[in-house]
């Protein structure tokens, strides 16, 4: 098989474009041979930002504010990851209790709203109405019409998460929560009370969402076990004692059998563990764990990876939910792509519980918001974003200007896994089919959506792109070269 492909060769290519009900821009191509057998399917990231290049020369304190604008779905994650890197630049390895707790509060708020948005607004139509449902049914508007009570719960749960973000950041999207060494504001008593009054309702609804995701998985288990289920390695931050921790911890990686590849690795050494492969058909790179090698080193991140990697959860309801989740696979890693949904709802419960704990903590009204110490030249911030491990790396010169930036975003970590998932589903559902239907193609998108890819984030990679495109036939012979007209 050739890495490049041509519309002029014998290979037929089906494109799903644009991908819908995912955040951001991407497309899928499915490659069929003469006998209509699928031999490959690819997720293409087709846009670029150039962040790592154009942030160079900017003052370091701008990074947490600018970088969040890579992504309107998880801006808080980028704000926090950049701020964690800049904490090291300004010499603040330990924040004040108020600062760390405000950051955690906003982070839990964002994971809650992001997971709810993904599960209800984007995916629920597939799960509730069927992958083959008519295209006019597969959207949140149909959900509102057909299941108005459930849809309203979803709207209000997301609203609650967004209100947590607004209370800590000033606005719901692209706010100003974290700064190098701390945070901008604390939480006032009226802000706290406005959130507290909804806590009981949120806990109840989070349980309800968990039940939907769990029951869906259990009732459709025989399908789910065959739908893009494959063994892989997993990567996540975990706390020192192995508990789930979405804001801070050390890296743990395990293989498909549940054996640790590394554990409690300081994330500032991420370059010792991870490399990224370049492939010609996507602007998104393919990370792999160095010691496992380029071929076998790919891994998954995100809710499924976090639950697989975490020994336990430190909030009571989520702890119970985790035990039940793990019991499905007898404590061994769960490899089912569609189990991401269940895992996501376990995390929603955890976030709601954490928000409840934090709101009752008087440290949130503290006045010590930021600290500074000895200036450093390099900072690396890592956080568990809604979609998985997010890595920010910066170097800063003596004039406070950024000289180097490297980002590995959550969705990039899942690149190989998403490609394997869609290839697997394409082979099982499209191969040999006399006619490709809309419902069949939606199966491919269902597999993509399970990973909740943030294609907005994934477009951050470097700036201006090659202006020459070369077309090869399947034997690799150049048959056409196109140059952009200036």
């Amino acid at each position, binding site marked *: 098989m050739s890495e*490049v492909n041509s519309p002029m060769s014998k290979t037929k290519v089906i*494109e799903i474009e644009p991908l819908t009900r995912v955040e951001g821009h991407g497309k899928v191509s499915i490659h069929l041979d003469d006998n209509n057998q699928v031999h490959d399917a690819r997720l293409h990231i087709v846009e670029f930002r150039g962040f790592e290049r154009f942030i160079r020369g900017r003052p370091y304190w701008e990074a947490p504010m600018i970088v969040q604008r890579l992504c309107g779905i998880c801006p808080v994650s980028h704000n926090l990851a950049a701020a964690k890197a800049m904490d090291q630049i300004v010499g603040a390895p330990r924040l004040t209790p108020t600062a760390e707790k405000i950051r955690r509060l906003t982070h839990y708020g964002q994971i809650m709203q992001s997971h709810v948005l993904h599960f209800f607004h984007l995916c629920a139509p597939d799960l509730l109405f069927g992958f083959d449902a008519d295209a006019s049914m597969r959207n949140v508007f149909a959900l509102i019409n057909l299941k108005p009570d459930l849809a309203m719960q979803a709207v209000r749960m997301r609203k609650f998460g967004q209100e947590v973000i607004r209370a800590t950041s000033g606005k719901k999207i*692209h706010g100003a929560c974290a700064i190098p060494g701390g945070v901008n504001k604390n939480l006032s008593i009226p802000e706290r009370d406005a959130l507290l009054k909804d806590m009981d309702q949120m806990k109840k609804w989070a349980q309800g969402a968990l039940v939907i995701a769990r029951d869906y998985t259990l009732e459709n288990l025989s399908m789910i076990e065959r739908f893009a289920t494959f063994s892989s390695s997993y990567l996540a931050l975990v706390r020192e004692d192995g508990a789930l921790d979405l804001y801070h911890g050390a890296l743990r990686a395990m293989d498909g059998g549940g054996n640790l590849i590394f554990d409690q690795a300081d994330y500032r050494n991420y370059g010792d563990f991870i490399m990224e492969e*370049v492939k010609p058909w996507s602007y998104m790179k393919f990370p792999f764990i160095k010691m496992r090698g380029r071929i076998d080193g790919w891994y998954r991140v995100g809710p499924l990876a976090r639950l697989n990697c975490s020994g336990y959860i430190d909030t009571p309801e989520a702890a119970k939910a985790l035990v039940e989740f793990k019991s499905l696979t007898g404590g061994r890693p769960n490899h089912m792509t569609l189990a991401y949904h269940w895992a996501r709802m376990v995390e929603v419960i955890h976030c709601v519980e954490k928000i409840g704990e934090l709101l009752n903590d008087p440290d949130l009204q503290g006045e010590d918001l930021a600290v500074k110490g000895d200036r450093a030249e390099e900072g690396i911030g890592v956080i568990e974003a809604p979609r998985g491990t997010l890595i920010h790396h910066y170097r800063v010169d003596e004039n406070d200007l950024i000289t180097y930036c490297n980002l590995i975003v959550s969705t990039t970590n899942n690149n190989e896994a998403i490609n394997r998932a869609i290839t697997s589903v394409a082979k099982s559902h499209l191969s040999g089919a006399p006619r490709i239907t809309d419902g069949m193609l939606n199966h491919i998108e269902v597999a993509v959506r399970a990973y909740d890819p943030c294609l907005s984030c994934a477009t951050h990679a470097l700036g201006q*792109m090659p202006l020459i495109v070369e077309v090869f036939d399947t034997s690799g012979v150049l048959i056409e070269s196109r140059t952009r007209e200036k």
Partner: protein
Amino acid sequence: MKRIATVSLAGCFGCHMSLLDIDERIIDLMKLVEFDRTPLNDLKSFTRRCDIGLIEGSCCNEENVATLREFRRQCDTLVGVGQCAIMGGLPVMRNAIMHSDDPLLECLEEAYLNSRLVYNPTNDMPNDPALPLLLDKVYICSQVVKIDYVIPGCPPSGDLLWSVLTALINGTPITTPPGGVKYD
């Protein structure tokens, strides 16, 4: 009933998220409009002509330009939503890399060749025909097509979007919520 289409070009999806920040009012919106092509449903192309098109983001590749022109053809009123559509926002920052003799080469080498974390033994750049060609610069929407209204903000708040949208739908004068227009 009015018909509405939305798209995110070179943007972060934050303006679409802000549209969802109208929260419970989404039910009222559904009584006023039908959604045609939007990333919130599975319509991949226009099914018919629309009254209002909402554009998030600017143009960074040839697909963005084609999509924007299609929206202009299919929509009576085109609204640029958010800073990226209006002034380029974060994506346009790449236009400012001017100090180098060959900024493109510098960018490519940094992304795909130079980093010690990159594995790329053939030193090839992404060049598959499936990838749309990038534009030499990021272009704002009004450089490509006529834009009828703009809603500033990064992103504009859900309240502001609601005010403008309902006014456009009902054909009434646009009033903005107090302090609701921000140019961040």
